[in-house]
């Protein structure tokens, strides 16, 4: 069952289109990574999803409730951690959590143990009585995660949750998300960092300039990635044109570039998409055509390469 359904969502700010006709579903229990460069529309999408922003067009359902028509029902099942947030002054860590326990109408006699469990979870037990505004940024972020879990929500929406964390905390944070997923929560989180997402997510969406470029299971995406190669070969000088024409007429070959290398040899780099048999077929073709090949290599693009290509080199 899809717990989050986004149908033809668009959002304009004046003449600027921040989100342009995005549609996708997220299955219950997924760990969904939402990735895209600055200004891609991640935060805008998340603010619509969390009932903070009115969409210009389209519909968003969370657990079957419309974010526009039944925001309160959505709020009950959702925990949200914004990208930027503040904390109240003159308030201790436990008071902060207690305040939100109150907002979610959690029974008074359950709060004490709940708060200590949550602080344990985010490793802030020792800060129980400290003032919230005295915490470091990363600690505030962890406290905010604890806060978003106060009412044991089905859906967690986190906007760049790892951005203020040190490398160690980042790893721990990822483990925490995996752990939360094991507790049957659906987690929607955004990030700039592909490795954050590739390692732990089972579903990903890639956005750029308001457009959804790709969405689906990480395995499908990885397979797509694995099938994308560069073929790099070096041939003897006088045969470069013949090699190029063979490559150009072969299946799966995209752009072909040739650069002179040392000793009058030529390096040829060809974009290629196809599986392993296709690579061997290509090599066989070249050999049968009597092209004197000095070296031949099929290279898989790294995730980052693909991401850069997909997002047209936007800033990550």
């Amino acid at each position, binding site marked *: 069952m899809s717990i989050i359904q986004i149908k033809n969502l668009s959002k304009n700010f004046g003449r600027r289109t921040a989100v342009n006709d995005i549609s996708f579903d997220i299955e219950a229990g997924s760990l969904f990574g939402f990735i895209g460069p600055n200004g891609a529309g991640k935060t805008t999408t998340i603010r619509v999803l969390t009932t903070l922003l*009115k969409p210009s067009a389209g519909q968003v359902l969370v657990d079957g409730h419309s974010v526009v028509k039944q*925001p309160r029902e959505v709020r009950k099942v959702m925990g949200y951690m914004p990208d930027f947030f503040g904390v109240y002054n003159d308030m201790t860590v436990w008071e902060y959590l207690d305040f939100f326990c109150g*907002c979610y109408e959690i029974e008074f006699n359950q709060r004490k143990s709940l708060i200590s469990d949550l602080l344990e979870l985010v490793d802030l037990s020792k800060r129980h009585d400290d003032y919230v505004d005295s915490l470091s940024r990363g600690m505030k972020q962890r406290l905010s995660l604890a806060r978003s879990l106060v009412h044991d929500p089905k859906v967690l929406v986190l906007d760049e949750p790892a951005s203020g964390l040190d490398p160690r905390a980042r790893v721990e944070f990822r483990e925490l998300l995996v752990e939360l997923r094991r507790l049957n929560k659906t987690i929607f989180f955004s990030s700039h960092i592909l490795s954050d997402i590739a390692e732990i997510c089972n579903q990903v969406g890639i956005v750029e300039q308001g457009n959804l470029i790709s969405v689906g299971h990480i395995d499908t995406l990885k397979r797509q990635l694995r099938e994308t190669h560069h073929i790099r070969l070096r041939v003897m000088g006088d045969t470069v044109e013949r090699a190029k024409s063979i490559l150009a007429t072969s299946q799966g070959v995209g752009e072909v570039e040739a650069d002179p290398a040392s000793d009058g040899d030529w390096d040829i780099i060809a974009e290629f998409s196809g599986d392993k048999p296709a690579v061997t077929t290509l090599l066989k073709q070249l050999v049968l055509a009597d092209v004197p090949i000095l070296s031949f290599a099929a290279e898989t693009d790294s995730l980052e390469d693909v991401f850069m290509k997909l997002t047209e080199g936007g800033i990550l």
Partner: protein
Amino acid sequence: MTSHTNPIIVNEMRTRMRGCRAYVLLTLYLALISCITATMYVTIYDTSTGLYGDYDITTANVRDAPDIGKAIFISTTILLLFLITHIAPAFTAASISGEREKQTYDILITTPLLARRIVWGKLGAVFLFLFLLILTSLPVQSLAFLFGGVAFTELIIATLVLAMSALAFGSVGLYISSLNRTTMVSILFTYSVILPFVYGLPFIVFWLGTFTLPVVALIGSVYSELASMIIGIVMAYLAGFLLSLNPFSSGLLTIIAATNGNGYFFFTEQVFYNISIPMVSPWIIYVFFCVFIVIVMAQLTIRQLNQISNF
């Protein structure tokens, strides 16, 4: 406390009463009110006994005691009214814009806490704080009883007027706060509504009042005596109504009506040499006006909070 205790009130009380700020404020306030009371006492005592008279305070002229009591009571009430009408809107004007400014608003609003409870929580917290001011001044006000000259009814009426002022002026600030992103703008906006109302309204009414007699006389000479009388009565009611909406003029008129032996609830006002019209005591109109303002402002604020933003 139960799970249904309004978390906003708990939150505001915790943070507002923390540290020495609140106590310093209360101490300053008490010092001020004591000073004024002492001044009242000495001034009235002096003027009644004469500068060269008997300076022994303990044997103050018993006949003057009620005057001293009244003066203490009225001056402390006016001071409180001044503080409340000027502080309450500033406090509440900061409350919702402040959350936006501190970036705590989004988190608060994405909890299922009903907008109604946010509004009453914010208003309630400010009200409770101001009510503390009212309560702490009770010992000073009770001095007035010691001297006599003040009826218990008067104390009840004064407290009611003060409490309703806190709520009404607070609710205006709260609504304006819900419209704005920054506290600075909210506070400026609020004062630009409150100050003309508090200081401008009575003057405008008095100013318009100066036209009443000539206009009534003119109508009397051009049309008929009856027409001028009707116009006169309508004008008197209108002026009375408008002056009742302002806490200070309302209070003043209530005091005047009461000292003229007219009672605290109804009185008659002479409009022409032979006609007296019945009027409701101004404080009653004021209290109802406050209730009206609070309800309207609270509803508007709730609607504002329930609206999903376009930006």
